């Protein structure tokens, strides 16, 4: 006989358990540096022209390596090609709010 409600797990904790079940390797530090560093580095693109040209020279006859699955993390082995980088064009079109 239930004379009182079962002690419910706070919803936040339940959600946390769900998340940990999906991503067991998630950082122990709650919300900490990882987020902040990611936030501070928004917009960072890594490109070394030396690496790029050397790779181009070495691979004259071969295909240049194409972008990996994560286009945002352009570092290390992957050398971006001009085709990988998104076009940076300013909006020459008038805002639709003014239309």
């Amino acid at each position, binding site marked *: 006989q239930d004379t009182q409600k079962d002690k419910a797990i*706070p*919803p*936040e*904790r*339940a*959600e*946390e358990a*769900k*998340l*940990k079940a*999906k991503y067991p390797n*998630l950082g122990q530090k*709650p*919300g*900490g*540096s990882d*987020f*902040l*560093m990611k*936030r*501070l580095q*928004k*917009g*960072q*693109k*890594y*490109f070394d022209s030396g690496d790029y040209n050397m790779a181009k020279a070495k691979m004259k006859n071969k295909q240049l390596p194409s972008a990996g699955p994560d286009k945002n993390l352009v570092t290390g082995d992957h050398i971006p090609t001009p085709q990988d980088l998104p076009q*940076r*064009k*300013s*909006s020459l*079109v*008038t*805002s*639709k*709010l*003014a*239309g």
Partner: protein
Amino acid sequence: FLGAGGGNDIQWCFSQVKGAVDDDVAEADIISTVEFNHSGELLATGDKGGRVVIFQQEQENKTQSHSRGEYNVYSTFQSHEPEFDYLKSLEIEEKINKIRWLPQKNAAQFLLSTNDKTIKLWKISERDKRPEGYNLKEEDGRYRDPTTVTTLRVPVFRPMDLMVEASPRRIFANAHTYHINSISINSDYETYLSADDLRINLWHLEITDRSFNIVDIKPANMEELTEVITAAEFHPNSCSTFVYSSSKGTIRLCDMRASALCDRHSKLFEEPEDPSNRSFFSEIISSISDVKFSHSGRYMMTRDYLSVKIWDLNMENRPVETYQVHEYLRSKLCSLYENDCIFDKFECCWNGSDRQVEFLSLCTPDLSNIVMTGSYNNFFRMFDRNTKRDVTLEASRENNKPRTVLKPRKVCASGKRKKDEISVDSLDFNKKILHTAWHPKENIIAVATTNNLYIFQDKMN
């Protein structure tokens, strides 16, 4: 008039909607900031494409006594362009993060607009006359053959179609290593602050080649970084006081008279945490996304992921009021984390205030008594501090009959969904209202959905 405490709840009606109808939203069209000027006559929006659009309220129509003036396009210009910092290999977005208007001093209007790195002072001026009757030039600009000039005339100014011109008067650049999240004009109307993730700088509006750093929370070792600055604002009356909020849910009040570098706060506002409720999400959802002083400066309001808190500047250890914006999301935090929505930065704003009344009233009730903030599914919320009543409204083209009162919405958190209620799982998390603004003097509000701007007014009569 408004804000004078309780009484009638405001009945909001649709007035106008700006922007394209199509579902396919171009990134550039995403609205990133909305701000009324000090008189409320002008309404500015900034977008991800670096463009600013300014709307002007029409003079009230004598024949249509039941509606206030409509807002129509007054000026539009490209404020910021995308840049690439080759030295740091950093892409600089042209997105306008904030717009702040200067109080009007002469015929022209001035505003500050900022992207992640550069603040610009724009002058918006009208030209409605042009000189005609030159001796050496034709009206179309071609030069006249001097030998054909036999008489002299004095050029005169004649009316022309109104032209509104925007020109950049000052560019405040190269002072921020990190991304600017706030700008705030001081009550001295001569200086302003700009805040990025780790630093706050003080500028003089006339001087672009120098800026004073007044807050620096960058640790010597970046591995020790635990919090960042999320918003900053000057006190509305005290020109040496400002506050800044953090990603850990704290607000620090600083006094520039205390020292040149305000790393030591004068006051620290923080609500004690219930350790039994702590979870992986606690810190993320406590991050403050916006801070706004009340009109008197006695209170300030902060927005975190799930709530709005009102703080009395005289009490640091807890807020005086807390309003839940969408508490039903607490049991959805896992998926909101996965789709990144948990990082959405909602803004908040106070109702406008009739400053004349403020000065006349002897016991100075704080005329900031209604709070507005956005949510998902194109819902936005209002909380009345006096009556303790709240309402959820929707910005949607389906409700666009002028002078028809908006129907309150209700989200069903769990259990049986009543008719007209919407269940949490049906909410569209792509339809976020992050930016709202309240006319400084009247009950007119501007609500930005992803790419549309809605204007609502209270039903007059």
